[in-house]
């Protein structure tokens, strides 16, 4: 591997390989860069900007930006942390998120990031949009109230399940998760065993009637904060949560 090189992330020198993204290189060395729209195993698209870092001074998405030799990356600066905080807060107010009784509580990456970033209550006003619940499928429920439009389901269905179950309609604030059928999830080829069902970082795509099976205290982010597995045992992790 003679073509390997090093970069520095927040002052730490770490190895990287050509074509490797900043996020992947950091993760391989136990450095967690927050992310939402990216997950290991699918193509990064740079949609949510939560992974924003400065690389040689330039603002880039760490999930898509390839590392280059001697690159100097800043991630945990006050400026960047504050941007991430604002992005996460905006995601909260753009949807209808009721963490207090949401079944994804404790394993939701959005909530997990909010805690990690020290967000107590959003400072922006909630929009409370009207969004549809699609419970037509016998085993899967789609609750658009919680969708953060990260596109993980779309890419997972397309690239890993080979199905194209999910997509989007509309633009900007009117953008919505859509299914590849006239109207309902039941009319698509979606199956409860699809990887796309587990790809959702929030509680927008869920297996039916599996809620609250894990007691409070034992849920992934009760045990350790999001990202901690990357920092403590990098090789085991998928997307900042515990590998399981």
């Amino acid at each position, binding site marked *: 591997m003679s073509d390997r090189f090093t970069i520095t992330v927040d002052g730490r020198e770490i190895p990287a390989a050509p074509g490797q993204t900043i996020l992947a290189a950091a993760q391989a060395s136990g450095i967690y860069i927050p992310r939402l729209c990216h997950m290991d195993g699918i193509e990064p698209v740079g949609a949510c900007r939560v992974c924003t870092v400065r690389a040689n001074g330039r603002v880039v998405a760490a999930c898509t930006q390839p590392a280059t030799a001697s690159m100097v990356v800043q991630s945990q600066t006050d400026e960047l942390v504050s941007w991430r905080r604002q992005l996460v807060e905006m995601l909260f107010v753009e949807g209808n998120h009721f963490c207090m009784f949401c079944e994804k509580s404790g394993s939701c990456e959005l909530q997990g990031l909010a805690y990690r970033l020290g967000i107590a209550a959003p400072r922006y006003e909630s929009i409370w949009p009207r969004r549809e*619940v699609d*419970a037509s499928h016998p085993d899967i429920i789609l609750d658009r109230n919680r969708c953060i439009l990260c596109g993980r389901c779309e890419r997972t269905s397309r690239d890993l399940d080979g199905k194209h179950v999910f997509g989007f309609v509309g633009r900007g604030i009117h953008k919505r998760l859509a299914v590849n059928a006239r109207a309902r999830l039941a009319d698509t080829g979606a199956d409860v065993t699809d990887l796309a069902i587990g790809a959702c970082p929030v509680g927008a795509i869920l297996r039916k009637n599996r809620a609250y099976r894990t007691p409070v205290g034992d849920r992934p982010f009760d045990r350790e904060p999001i990202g901690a597995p990357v920092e403590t045992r990098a090789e085991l992790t998928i997307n900042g949560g515990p590998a399981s």
Partner: protein
Amino acid sequence: MVSPQGKRRIEISPVTRVEGHGKVTIHLDEDNRVTQARLHIVEFRGFERFIQGRPFWEMPVAVQRLCGICPVSHHLCAAKAVDHIVGGENLTPTAEKMRRLMHYGQMFQSHSLHFFHLASPDLLFGFDADPATRNVVGIIRSNKPLAYQAIMMRKFGQEVIRATAGKKIHGTGAIPGGINKNLSVAERDALLAELETMKKWSREAVELARRYTLDNLEEVGRFASFDSSYMSIIRSDGAMDLYNGGLRAIDRDGKTIFDHVPNERYLDYIAEGVRDWSYMKFPFFTSIGEEDGWYRVGPLARVNACDFIDTPGAEAARKEFKSLTGGKPNHMTMAYHWARMIEVLHSIEAIEKLLADPDLQGTDLVASGPRRREGVGIIEAPRGTLFHHYRVGDDDLVTMCNLIVSTTSNNEAMNRSVRRVAEDCLSGAAEITEGMLNRIEVAIRAYDPCLSCATHALGRMPLIAELVSADGRVIDRKVKES
């Protein structure tokens, strides 16, 4: 509101900063005799709409937002209802016992809180004591051990809830058809370490309430009191059962009105009347009719209605309670407090029995069976019988929800108690005295009404009293913080 012709009206209004509030109006005729007394509670019905279109498995967790005071009761009651949806109503032994443990913990902490923080100042200092000392701060000053016990008993109940629901408030323990955790040996032993102390204090609390009743029998016997029917759920053998059972109703003489009514048939036996002056409904027994079919629920109803209690200390206390009225129902409104403490003792004895049961360490947690489209759950919440009823579409989303909360069942009775007090205190007097205000507050408090549950208001009751003359002028006004 326009006063009825030729009548004066006194208004007593709890002031709250959130939606929903209560108000007492007392109507007087020209000679200052009470013609009518009404407790107005604005019922918060938004919840039933809010959860329509949500998946049924969210109910046990979502409904806890209904009430800041007894979320655990709503949690368990909704779980009992959705058990039927998943065909899991025959719970595994571990699930049923974990839920019961949670429920007794809730009963224990809620009753302890009410008795020591809210009611004991009334009982220990008397209704007419200076409000500046007739409060929980007064108890702390004058009776340190009692104040300490109150805090520790509440804490113990909350620890039971935490061990069963995962959190002290808004836990997730009960899930459709079961429970999501068992009790670890460490959790069990931590609770066992406190048990003897809790039992001792519970016995002392029963004694305090009993002594109070007997020492003040003349006043207690008539204060805010009247004959009534009673309702609660009951075990198949007639034992008090706070968690599960058919519905039993008895009349003022203790005779059966209906018994062991299966939960899903409650609508055949109970209907809810509406009156133009109140947002809160007035439930009644359909066999008797709206006029006379009202009833009381809660501790007094349960101790009156059961044939026995299956734990020794509470059963002995119940016998003493019943002997005071010769085995007939006890209709004294202030006896709610005594009955409440008997239930505290029963709860801790039931907790003791459960903690000794190895089923709590079992691992078979969830049951299921044939899917249904409808489920009714009924439980005895601290304040009385609580109903949750859901209908669910084939897509698992809730299409209908009906809740009857305990405070609603006691609506008519609370009105009558207020009227009784008003008649005793007010007739012939045209002004609002401190004593009258106090007594109305004490009477309402005996029922431990959960205004929060029925109205989403806080469970506090600062009062404003206004005396309004027939032509609508405010001729007297008193404010009472609490």
